[in-house]
């Protein structure tokens, strides 16, 4: 591994910045993601900050089954993120379509549109599960070193 890559991985693991994108979720997972950022769970203490633009983000947190309208936009947002980038599918819908599997407006599962690194199941997911997902992601990136 080149020294530049080492530096990038080090910086990434210190403070992975996240971008939250709702691709047609029921809001259940979205409020739990925000919950994970607020005082009771507070993942910000691990250096994670919710960013507003894909250009600043390392991890794309996607909630919801991908609706046909959103699939194209999701792709665009993913392409705007700088490398190295990771996708976290949060919730049963994002993992497999969940309760919306079979709806005509839905392409079930984020992995049909984007490569996914971590799947966090649950309907809706608990904030603890989201934190666990992030930790697993960081560990897997560390393992690659």
């Amino acid at each position: 591994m080149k020294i530049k890559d080492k530096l990038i991985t080090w910086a990434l693991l210190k403070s992975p910045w996240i971008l939250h994108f709702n691709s047609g979720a029921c809001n259940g997972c979205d409020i739990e993601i925000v919950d994970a950022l607020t005082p009771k769970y507070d993942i910000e203490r691990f250096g994670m900050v919710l960013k507003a633009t894909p250009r600043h983000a390392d991890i794309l947190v996607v909630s919801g089954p991908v609706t046909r309208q959103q699939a194209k936009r999701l792709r665009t947002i993913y392409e705007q993120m700088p490398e190295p980038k990771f996708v976290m599918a949060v919730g049963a819908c994002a993992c497999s379509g969940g309760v919306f599997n079979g709806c005509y407006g839905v392409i079930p599962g984020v992995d049909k549109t984007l490569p996914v690194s971590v799947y966090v199941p649950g309907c809706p997911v608990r904030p603890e599960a989201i934190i666990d997902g992030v930790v697993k992601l960081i560990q897997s990136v560390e393992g690659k070193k």
Partner: protein
Amino acid sequence: MSKITIPLGPQHPALKEPENFMLVLEGEQISGATVNLGYNHRGMEKAAEERTYIQNLYLIERVCGICSHSHTTCYITNVEEIAKAETPKRALAIRALFGELERVHSHLLWLGVAAYEMGFETLFMYTWRDREQVLDCLEMLSGNRVHYSINTIGGVRRDISAEQKAEVLKRIAYLEERTKYYVKIGTEESTILARTQNVGKLPYDVAIQRGAVGPTARASGVARDVRKDEPYLIYNELDFKVITHDTCDVFGRLVVRVLELVESYKMIKQILNGLPEGPIAVKVPMRLPAGEAVNHYEAPRGEDIHYLKANGTDKPDRVKVRAPTMANLQSVAYMMEGGWLADAPLVIAAIDPCMSCTDRAAVWDPKKGKTTVYGWEELRKMGIEHYKRRGVDFSRL
């Protein structure tokens, strides 16, 4: 100065959910706004026709994660009305209790989001920390934080024990204390006053004309609340006030919501202290006789309407949901006109938009190959024509 049209959304830092506003700008001022919907359209109403009534309960719950209890209660009232089921009194009281706990969690959530849009992040963190108290109550009573699934056809799934009651009352007492602080901050803090007063004006007559509902309408002086106008569950036995405010701006909407929190605490205490004895559910047959039912419910965001048509099988013929945000979006376009671009996110947040509830109104025309979203005028015209054919004339309304 030439006009510029800029898109706001579907992915935008100020929006928590996918929606799109095309803003026509003259300098920094908004001269026109169009709302585009459909980013969250999943096709749930069609999916509901392929599932049984009890399966639909869990699908309808996921119309929206914030007001999930509102949607299921409204849907289940329709089912029980068609099945002619006698729901026990205790079950109705527990449903009302969850309805109010949900309103508390939703209003606290809104207060946080609105504070965040104002740039007042401390208040956002405070309210979301206190909101955890309600979520703990909901988790203790139902087993889940967000989708409680407390309703089942014919009653509720879980009973409330004496220990749980004491625990909920303890947390409500804490929240009451905190809400006093929020009332003080919301009405006196100069940052909030500067950001909210005279922003996003919606006069009384426009609110009525555009069919605003819930806190948005009540902040414009329209005393419209389903809980008072046509009481459902056990609301006719509860003592509460309909909060209205006459400033017609974002400040009014903030005050209405914060004071409604106080009313909700009052109701939660009344329900818990006067919980009727008896069973919590009755058995309802799987198949429903043919029939139709419409019901409305005061969700945290306003009036939620559900329509259900049964055809004698165990699956519905048609399910239709009209969520409160759908009614309020017409007002948002009005509120933004003439305002400043910097206020747009706050004005949008002020109606507490919930797009996952709303996105079912896009109409796809396969012949023309394009999507049409019906506006208020067209829908009104269609409604008048529809009822004319049935012999009722609404055109002068």
